[in-house]
């Protein structure tokens, strides 16, 4: 018995010792003695009658004690940036999906273009771009002096190879297939029918031209793919590319920083390159820390262990009192809506068909609700809801209401949209027109039974709050709303399978350019086809026109019309676009608060540390 306990104790002690191995004694607190130039007033007696006081610089020994917490950022860094967790199979631009990657890739593996703080495309690796008259040819030029960290030059061949890899049948990812869809020959390559992409032309070592099958004024919204060193990777067979260690540890880089380390779920460590050919940066070292829990991230910001972190709206007031943190605000470009699932039987049947027959191979069992098919009912829902209350409760008041998904840039906002200001009477009236009856308790009835809708979202707190507000407001017009919270990975399937009628969605880059909306609401767009069931040919036509021309007036007219369609048909209930808040250590200067947190490092060369 005693032996058992002593054995346990011994094992425990050993375990703790092993865990702490590599120990060095605690560093002593050093009192620095510093040479400081101090201005000293010396009295000089001159032969002239007056005594003159002369200021003279005299070196003086001064004892400097290290300042207590919060510690000022050390000279040159390291700078600690807080971020959410990383998703994505590999730490590589092809699998670009989450914030830590957005923050780090432009620093190590820049793409031809990136995005500025208004989320407008800017040149990054490319030094110049030439676009022809009708936006069907984009020619990018790489800087002459551009080299990889191993000395090899960055060439157009690298660009071509990377683009091919991004949509290759064996390794490519859908997002790039989407972004490169207008390049001639891209879809054939993606389907594995051809070996090269016809529309990519390598003009010379530093020049590359993209030929598009149709005019596309928004092509540069999709060229942000980080360029990879083909001289290291082109020899690997495509099927084995994912196993190549470079995919998780990009040791050879072309950006202003060197890749030091990527510790999964902990941090990414980058170090400034010496003698870099391109952007000159001042910050020596950067750590991007990844957090699952916002509370932990904010605590670290407050304690001075993080220099930059996203601050949610309802923590704003607190950080107003934290001395060493500045709050920077940016008008967001994401949306906050609930999609309405009003797919009809034919659409669902189509989705259930096997892929060979043109379907998607799902097995959706859903009884479509006839009243949702009628846009008047959906408008009634909008009238029943008080958008201002939602902004107050869910976004803490820090948001701008929106009435369609085309709400930015400013020129794209249609001023004549219906705001659906809360009007319960009007809501009931519209519902009545569709065929809904109300009993004497105010319950909304369809075919004699109360109308029941289901709200679906992930388990985050604001999603839950939105559900609860909707529950009450829809309850006030007699509709019963049930709330269904699922984990993020189950969310998409639950939405596709029709387990809900109102599906919360947030984010996206709508405010950057109206063309983004076509990713969501055109007939074949993922959300429309799979979940909402919205298909308006006129809308599709307008969205296609919008990218075909660069004439701002024509674009404005087109997008205003498209916006009006969305506002009238209401495939989603549009709520707001949230502002984005960054908590920044006062010593870190030069940041431009970006409308999308992923792009806040875009102007890294402007960042500097102030004592």
């Amino acid at each position: 018995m005693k032996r058992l306990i002593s054995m346990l104790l011994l094992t425990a002690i050993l375990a703790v010792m092993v865990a702490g191995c590599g120990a060095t004694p605690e560093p002593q607190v050093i009192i620095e003695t510093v040479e400081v130039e101090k201005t000293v007033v010396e009295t000089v007696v001159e032969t002239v009658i007056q005594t003159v006081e002369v200021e003279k610089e005299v070196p003086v020994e001064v004892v400097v004690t290290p300042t207590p917490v919060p510690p000022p950022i050390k000279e040159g860094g390291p700078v600690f940036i807080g971020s959410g967790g990383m998703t994505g199979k590999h730490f590589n631009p092809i699998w670009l999906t989450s914030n830590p990657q957005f923050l780090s890739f432009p620093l190590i593996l820049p793409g031809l273009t990136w995005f500025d703080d208004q989320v407008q495309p800017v040149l990054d690796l490319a030094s110049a771009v030439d676009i022809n008259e009708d936006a069907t040819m984009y020619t990018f030029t790489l800087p002459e002096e551009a080299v990889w960290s191993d000395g090899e030059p960055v060439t157009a061949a690298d660009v071509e190879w990377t683009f091919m890899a991004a949509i290759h049948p064996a390794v490519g990812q859908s997002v790039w297939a989407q972004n490169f869809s207008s390049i001639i020959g891209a879809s054939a390559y993606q389907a594995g029918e051809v070996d090269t992409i016809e529309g990519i032309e390598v003009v010379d070592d530093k020049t590359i031209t993209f030929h598009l099958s149709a005019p596309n004024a928004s092509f540069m919204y999709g060229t942000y793919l980080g360029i990879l060193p083909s001289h290291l990777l082109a020899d690997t067979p495509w099927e084995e590319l994912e196993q190549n260690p470079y995919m998780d540890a990009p040791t050879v880089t072309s950006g202003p920083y060197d890749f030091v380390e990527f510790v999964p779920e902990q941090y990414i460590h980058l170090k400034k390159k010496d003698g870099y050919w391109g952007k000159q940066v001042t910050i020596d070292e950067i750590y991007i820390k990844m957090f699952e829990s916002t509370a932990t991230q904010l605590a670290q910001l407050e304690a001075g262990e993080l220099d930059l972190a996203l601050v949610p709206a309802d923590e704003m007031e607190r950080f107003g009192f934290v001395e060493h943190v500045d709050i920077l605000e940016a008008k967001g470009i994401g949306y906050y809506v609930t999609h309405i699932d009003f797919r009809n039987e034919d659409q669902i049947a189509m989705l259930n068909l096997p892929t060979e027959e043109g379907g998607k191979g799902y097995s959706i069992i859903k009884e479509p609700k006839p009243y949702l098919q009628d846009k008047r009912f959906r408008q009634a829902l909008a009238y029943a809801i008080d958008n201002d209350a939602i902004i107050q409760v869910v976004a803490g008041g820090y948001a701008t209401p929106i009435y369609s998904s085309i709400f930015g840039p400013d020129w794209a906002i249609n001023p004549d949209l219906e705001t659906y200001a809360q009007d319960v009477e009007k809501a009931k009236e519209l519902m009545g027109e569709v065929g809904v009856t109300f009993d004497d308790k105010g319950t909304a009835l369809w075919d004699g039974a109360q109308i029941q809708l289901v709200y679906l979202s992930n388990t985050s707190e604001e999603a839950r709050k939105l559900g609860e507000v909707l529950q009450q407001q829809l309850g006030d017009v007699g509709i019963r709303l049930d709330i269904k919270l699922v984990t993020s990975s189950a969310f998409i399937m639950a939405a596709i399978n029709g387990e809900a009628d109102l599906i919360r969605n947030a984010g996206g880059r709508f405010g950057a350019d109206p063309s983004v909306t076509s990713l969501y609401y055109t007939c074949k767009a993922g959300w429309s086809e799979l979940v909402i069931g919205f298909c308006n040919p006129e809308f599709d036509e307008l969205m296609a026109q919008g990218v075909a021309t660069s004439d701002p007036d024509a674009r404005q007219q087109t997008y205003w019309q498209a916006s009006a369609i969305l506002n009238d048909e209401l495939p989603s209930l549009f709520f707001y676009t949230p502002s984005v808040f960054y908590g920044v250590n006062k010593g870190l200067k030069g940041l431009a608060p970006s409308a999308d947190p992923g792009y806040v490092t875009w102007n890294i060369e402007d960042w500097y540390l102030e004592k």
Partner: protein
Amino acid sequence: MGKYILRRTLISIPVLIGITLITFALIHLAPGDPVTGMIDPTLGDFNPEMVERERVKLGLDRPLPVQYAMWLGRVLRGDLGYSMINSRPVGEMVGERIGSTLQLTIAALFLSILVGLPLGVLSAVKQYSVLDYLTTLFSFAAVSVPGFFLSLGLIYIFALQLKWLPTSGMRTLGQDPTLFDYLKHMIMPVTVLAVSTIAPLARYARSSMLEVLSQPYVNTARAKGLREWAAIMRHAFPNALLPLVTVIGLRLPGLFAGSVIVEQIFHWQGMGTLNIWAVMNQDYTTLMGLNMIAAILVLVANQVADVAYAMVDPRIRYD
């Protein structure tokens, strides 16, 4: 006894296989799979072929029994496979994290024994005294607070207000790792974990100590002229430790599982966070690997506890 241990070990093998089968069935019951979690509907003209291709790569298109057989085959060869979400070897991920979790849980167990045992014994010896009431109150109060609440409270007080300790994480980045740095980061999470064990330990210690103290042989020891303390420590105390073996035994599997919430809040990369990450993302291979390792550990821990119990209480026979 030896035969008993051998028999138990042999039976453990089919039990283990049974556990993996159940795990396999459970994780496939949930709707979706690792690939659907990665679907992004904003991708226009949504391409089912790319999703299908990913599925084929991961072997998810094969019938379920085949998938299970393939997994089992690999495991028997010592290969736990690769995560379906980030392609890292499962064994490597577990190896990285198990040490971190053990750091916390063993230290916590240690701490709770160090604090709980004496508290319990003292309470029993001085039953109904002020000390007894106080320790009762304290140990119950400590266990009544939810883990996440205590964690946040400690962070608020010690890291934000008093600034004595770092808020979270396993070490301070940007500095060289030192033992002292590790220890500073361990204090709060270990305390939170220990707190939930101190109370039951103290209570069990107290109740079994009370039982033993009322035994005749203790009175005999006193009658023999032994001082009170000697009587307690030499005669009563060792026998009172019996149920403690059960309590510690029950805690053993938990040592390796870690606490999801504590690890999440204190940003501690351990088994708890790995587990929940794998569940949330439906990472089948990681889940199977994790569960199998957990199963093995539980089986071993239970066996050790049973054997220890039999060793400690000579009246128990297993036959």
